[in-house]
């Protein structure tokens, strides 16, 4: 068997990898060279087991075939569960669209509220749309102060913390007229704590890779090919900076911002590292693997791009993805990890631009391309994200919760129509029946590049389902990156420091 030299191997070798791990990585890559589609079979199988996504059922082709095969009557289905004349009230907090969201996301958000009022005219829905980066702190404080909402829709990472604290009510799928086979297993795992279910998934997604074809061309790179590996991303980023003066890769390293782990973990996992051991076949969530050789190699990539090559936005330390979207739209950034919704958002903003800005923005939209997130020496990976909806306990709500009203709301959010429409531009319906509806057909026609993010689904890895996940992902991981990028600690020390913190957290728990 001939060993093929690749940038990953070069990089790992530079980092003085152990002979054994180098051989393992080499073997994997050699296999990849010989069997292009089977190369990641082992790790891919493991990924499927994590998310429950059947790669044969959820391909762009099969999704297109599934779409439009059923017709649903949402009102009838809901009223079979909770009668239409049910009266009551429910306080509902959620992370809804922001100014940066696409028009279609905002429209469906408003339409859901209007539709719910027609399904249940006697249920008063007290809806509150909170910012992603502010809702977690707000809901924690509200829960401590016995003022939490009755129902909350939270990003996939958060729920387990509240479940572990006993602040969520246990639920069953049956009480909402649902069953396990309607959801991906990974989605249900994210709402399971100590074998009990504490919520219902509303949407699940994986992101993809987006690039500006024109900037690639100007930099002398193949305009229609995304970087195949993370080592290519580093190389492309530098070449783009050197040749065009524009930023190459859209790095995000802000602390306490959900965007950071969603954009760092894919590379970390691709190199064989992980925050705990969530990328392994049978994770135990006991020990950190963030400072393994692969983990250090991944962090080294970030260091190279930010410090050595200066090929990424300087503001990466304080930026969220929203600011990167601005830079991308201004033609100042060439590539980044993105939701499919970012195409819709950027297209909307281009439509609103005026004068010279408009021409420039439209040119960017025309040159936007989506592809798969690059792979690393060990696997291709992406965060299996999404949201879940939960009922808080009466204790933290500070009073009785109208269970019927809550059930009506949760059912409305998780039945095929709104599970799909509320995920229109940026995600997928968690209720798999959503894929079969006529609206899915419409969505496939309307939302460009959806097939790229769908193609990433089989590579999804969920965040560790432990209460400390938010601290690990929103604080420790970004701090590690910041420590390395500001040279407060060396790359290796920053990774070791993060591992020490994660392990201490596991012990304290």
């Amino acid at each position, binding site marked *: 068997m001939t060993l093929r030299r690749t940038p990953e191997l070069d990089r790992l070798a530079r980092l003085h990898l152990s002979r054994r791990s180098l051989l393992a990585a080499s073997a994997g890559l050699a296999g990849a060279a010989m069997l292009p589609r089977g190369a990641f079979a082992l790790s891919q199988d493991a990924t499927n087991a994590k998310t429950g996504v059947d790669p044969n059922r959820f391909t762009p082709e099969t999704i297109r075939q599934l779409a439009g095969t059923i017709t649903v009557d949402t009102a009838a289905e809901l009223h079979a569960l909770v009668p239409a004349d049910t009266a009551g009230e429910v306080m509902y907090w959620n992370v809804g669209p922001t100014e940066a969201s696409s028009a279609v996301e905002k429209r469906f958000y408003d339409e859901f509220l209007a539709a719910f009022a027609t399904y249940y005219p006697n249920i008063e829905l007290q809806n509150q749309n909170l910012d992603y980066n502010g809702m977690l*702190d707000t809901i924690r404080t509200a829960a401590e102060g016995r003022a939490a909402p009755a129902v909350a829709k939270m990003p996939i990472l958060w729920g387990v913390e509240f479940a572990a604290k*006993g602040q969520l009510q246990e639920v069953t799928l049956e009480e909402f007229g649902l069953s396990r086979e309607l959801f991906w297993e990974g989605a249900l795992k994210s709402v399971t704590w100590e074998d009990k279910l504490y919520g219902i998934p509303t949407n699940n997604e994986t992101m993809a890779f987006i690039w500006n074809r024109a900037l690639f061309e100007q930099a002398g790179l193949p305009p229609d090919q995304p970087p195949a590996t993370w080592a290519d991303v580093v190389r492309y980023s530098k070449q783009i900076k050197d040749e065009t003066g524009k930023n190459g890769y859209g790095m995000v390293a802000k602390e*306490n911002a959900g965007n950071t782990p969603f954009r760092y973990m894919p590379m970390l996992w691709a190199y064989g590292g992980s925050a705990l051991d969530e990328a392994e076949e049978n994770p135990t969530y006991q020990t950190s693997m963030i400072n393994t050789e692969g983990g250090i190699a991944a962090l080294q990539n970030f260091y190279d791009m930010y410090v050595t090559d200066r090929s990424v936005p300087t503001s990466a330390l304080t930026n969220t993805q929203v600011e990167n979207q601005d*830079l991308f739209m201004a033609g100042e950034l060439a590539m980044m990890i993105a939701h499919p919704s970012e195409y819709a958002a950027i297209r909307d903003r281009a439509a609103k631009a005026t004068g010279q800005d408009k021409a420039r923005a439209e040119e960017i939209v025309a040159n936007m391309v989506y592809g798969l997130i690059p792979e690393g020496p060990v696997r291709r990976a992406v965060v299996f994200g999404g949201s879940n909806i939960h009922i808080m306990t009466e204790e933290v709500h500070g009073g009785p919760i109208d269970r019927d009203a809550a059930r009506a709301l949760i059912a409305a959010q998780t039945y095929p129509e709104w599970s799909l429409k509320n995920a229109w531009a940026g995600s997928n319906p968690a209720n798999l029946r959503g894929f079969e509806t006529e609206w899915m057909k419409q969505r496939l026609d309307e939302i460009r590049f959806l097939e790229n993010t769908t193609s990433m689904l089989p590579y999804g890895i969920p965040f560790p389902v432990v*209460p400390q996940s938010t601290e690990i992902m*929103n*604080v420790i991981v970004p701090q590690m990156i910041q*420590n390395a990028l500001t040279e407060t600690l060396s790359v290796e020390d920053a990774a070791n420091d993060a591992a020490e913190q994660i392990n201490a*957290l596991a012990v304290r728990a």
Partner: protein
Amino acid sequence: MALADSRALIAPKPRPGRRPPGLFATIVRRRTDYLYVLPAILVMLVVIGYPLVSTVFLSFFEITSSGERVATGVDNYQRILTDRRVNFWKITGNTLYWTVGSTFFATVLGFGAALVLHRRFPGRGVVRAILLIPWVISHVAAAYVWRWILHSDYGLLGGSLVAWGALDQTPVLLDSKANVMPTLIAVNVWKEFPFVMIMLTAGLQTVPEGLLRAARIDGANIWNQFRHVTLPHLKGVVLITTLLLFVTNLNSFTLVWLMTGGGPANASALWITQIYKLAFVGSPQRGLASAFSVILFLIMLGLGYFYVRALTRGNPDQGAA
């Protein structure tokens, strides 16, 4: 001299051989005064007293991820002072740098502005109104506007400097460990100097014109008038304003939190931002955050003592109460 004499006339002389009245007797004698302040004291007990007691209590516990309270004695206090991840000493350094820098420059700038505005010139009212704008703007709005102005990649400041040819590259301010604190202090000074300006403008109006005229007749130049007449009159106002500003800056949160979140790599973390992070961000460590708050409270209490002393100096009756 005349003032001292008049006080001597008003204050009751202690009778020789008689013990001064005790605390209880004083309270009974002044019961009406106490009744007047009773509602305020009750409100304070509810909104300050209860949280204070609760915070001190919590500081001796650790709250686990399942929400249980585990008594830890003084471990939290020990951790704050010794755990390198809590970063107490580095953050204390940052806080002092921020507080002293902001207070000093805001005072100097505010004093200068007050002296300029004390002189009569056409458009004085308009200039005063314009200078007041930073103080009137909310901290949140100011933080977002300044973040945009100072953004490392598309900031208005950097972009303009590059466009005018003054710099080759946009300056890295908020994303640089070295530059972030001076930058934040500059923004804070911009926000706070109007407060000093207003306080000292009011103070300047109390300087007796007669004394200044007399000094001028005696041949004092502008500097000597300022040094020997104006400044001694303003000493009290300057002291109180500076102390107020000092305490406000020690308690700063909004501007720093919204502009940098205490980053990059904790380079701009202050006491209050760190307490907030410990209490609400990641896996909340309420016990640790409470212990941090208690330490901060004790420091503030010390400063408060000096503030009250400065406020009541020369008025022993107020001080005694």
